[in-house]
């Protein structure tokens, strides 16, 4: 067709000139620049200048030694397995329940009227206020820790997903309706894909909250896990253990977030956002 030759695919959008990404010439190492500077400051302030004593802030060498000691004794693996397992189960359960309820509330006015006010009221309760009740109702075993992580995950996922579903473009819903879709088929083929950017944002926020609540749960009543390692270091006046726990929490949090970002990039390749 003649008009085909006259039309061109739309050019990809770019950031305005003043906002362009200007690399520092470090390539892949660029994101490591700030952590590197922190490490240098850490070495200088502890091992070189001696501003902090080992009981306040041990140097990197001492921390690395403690880490190896924990690995050799098998303790670190035990703590890591406990924390990662709690995140997997608590985050999984909280995110799944939040997605189901958000879909219901987002799609059905009746479900919204029935459930949303109550959920929003519960959301207003500071989540850590549940801790005494969870201990009272569920004891000090695994279950209250998993429930606390699930609570932490639930609300960011629920709020983002339900808002995303409610804001799905009505015109796209009409396209689905026009092609005979309704109910679950409409949800699967139009609503959830259209709301997936909001859902994935909710999942990333929920994952961050999950780590926060994990530490809270393990600080209170646990015999293993990175939160326990932290409180154990405090009780035994071993700052090196506390630093090991904090560094590992930072690394694990970053790794899981990065994994979710990877999923986001794969799933939202269609999104017409700016790509710098």
């Amino acid at each position: 067709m003649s008009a085909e030759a006259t039309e061109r695919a739309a050019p990809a959008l770019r950031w305005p000139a003043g906002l362009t990404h200007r690399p520092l010439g470090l390539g892949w190492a660029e994101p490591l620049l700030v952590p590197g500077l922190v490490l240098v400051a850490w070495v200088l302030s502890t091992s070189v200048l001696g501003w902090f004593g080992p009981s306040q802030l041990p140097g990197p060498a001492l921390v690395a030694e403690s880490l190896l000691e924990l690995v050799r004794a098998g303790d670190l693996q035990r703590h890591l397995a406990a924390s990662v397992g709690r995140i997997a189960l608590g985050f999984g359960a909280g995110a799944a329940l939040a997605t189901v309820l958000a879909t219901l509330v987002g799609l059905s006015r009746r479900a919204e009227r029935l459930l949303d006010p109550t959920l929003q009221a519960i959301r207003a309760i500071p989540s850590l206020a549940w801790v005494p009740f969870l201990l009272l109702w569920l004891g000090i075993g695994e279950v209250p820790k998993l429930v606390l992580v699930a609570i932490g995950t639930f609300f960011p996922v629920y709020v983002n997903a339900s808002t995303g579903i409610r804001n799905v473009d009505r015109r796209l819903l009409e396209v689905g309706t026009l092609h005979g879709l309704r109910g679950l088929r409409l949800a699967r083929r139009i609503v959830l894909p259209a709301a997936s950017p909001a859902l994935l944002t909710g999942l990333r926020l929920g994952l961050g909250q999950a780590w926060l609540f994990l530490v809270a749960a393990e600080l209170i009543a646990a015999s293993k896990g990175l939160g326990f390692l932290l409180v154990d270091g405090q009780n035994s006046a071993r700052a090196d253990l506390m630093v090991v726990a904090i560094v590992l929490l930072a690394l694990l949090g970053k790794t899981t977030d990065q994994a979710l970002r990877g999923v986001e990039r794969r799933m939202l390749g269609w999104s017409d956002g700016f790509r710098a």
Partner: protein
Amino acid sequence: MSLGVRLERVCKTYRGGRPLFSGLDLEVSPGETVALLGASGCGKSTLVRLVAGLERADGGEVRVGGTAVSRPLREVGMMFQEPRLLPWLDAAANVAFGLDDVLQRSEEGDRRVSALLAAVGLREAGGLLPHALSGGMAQRVALARALARAPEVLLLDEPFGAVDALARASLQDLLLEVTARNRTTVLLVTHDVEEALRVAGRLVVVGDRPARVLLDARIPGGSPRTPDRAGLGELRVRALAALGSARRSGPATV
């Protein structure tokens, strides 16, 4: 044999507004292409949405081939003012979305999609996502999707308003070719008298509030027609006069 469309004493009022239709009658014969013109806000788009089953009339009846429309019918395809492509599907998958579920997963479905993309001049663009398509290309994909099920009734709500003149002419030619081949019944909403005179077999101007038919005229000769074709001049004058009267009496907005 294609299906006709019949609106009988249709009433429609949006909450808080004046009645849009109050006993409107309109009949489109099977295989006929009717262009519907009128001032902005006179209810043209609502009329096709009623036929599409996307809205319900407050009173009266909308029938497609004898079936009262209460929800979208499989036999009816629609193309909107804007492409409304699903942004997470590439052009080919958007066209396939218009097919029946079983066909979507079959080789026959793939062949149909390829043929439709070729027909709208986008043979090579099947793998492009909507955000990478120009406005004209996206509207072509939307036309291919609307034609995918070979609908017996095709509703077009100002479909070519946003594309350039060259692309518009080629889309109109494609529409004429496909609808003539399949004897599709077409209801085309447009604000462009020349478009109506070029592609339709009948021209209906609606106006006033509640809407009534101000002009209903057959367009002489086969389509597509050139603007200087004999007999079109007088009809153009009558259509513009009816539109002018509709604009003076009709509201600017719904």
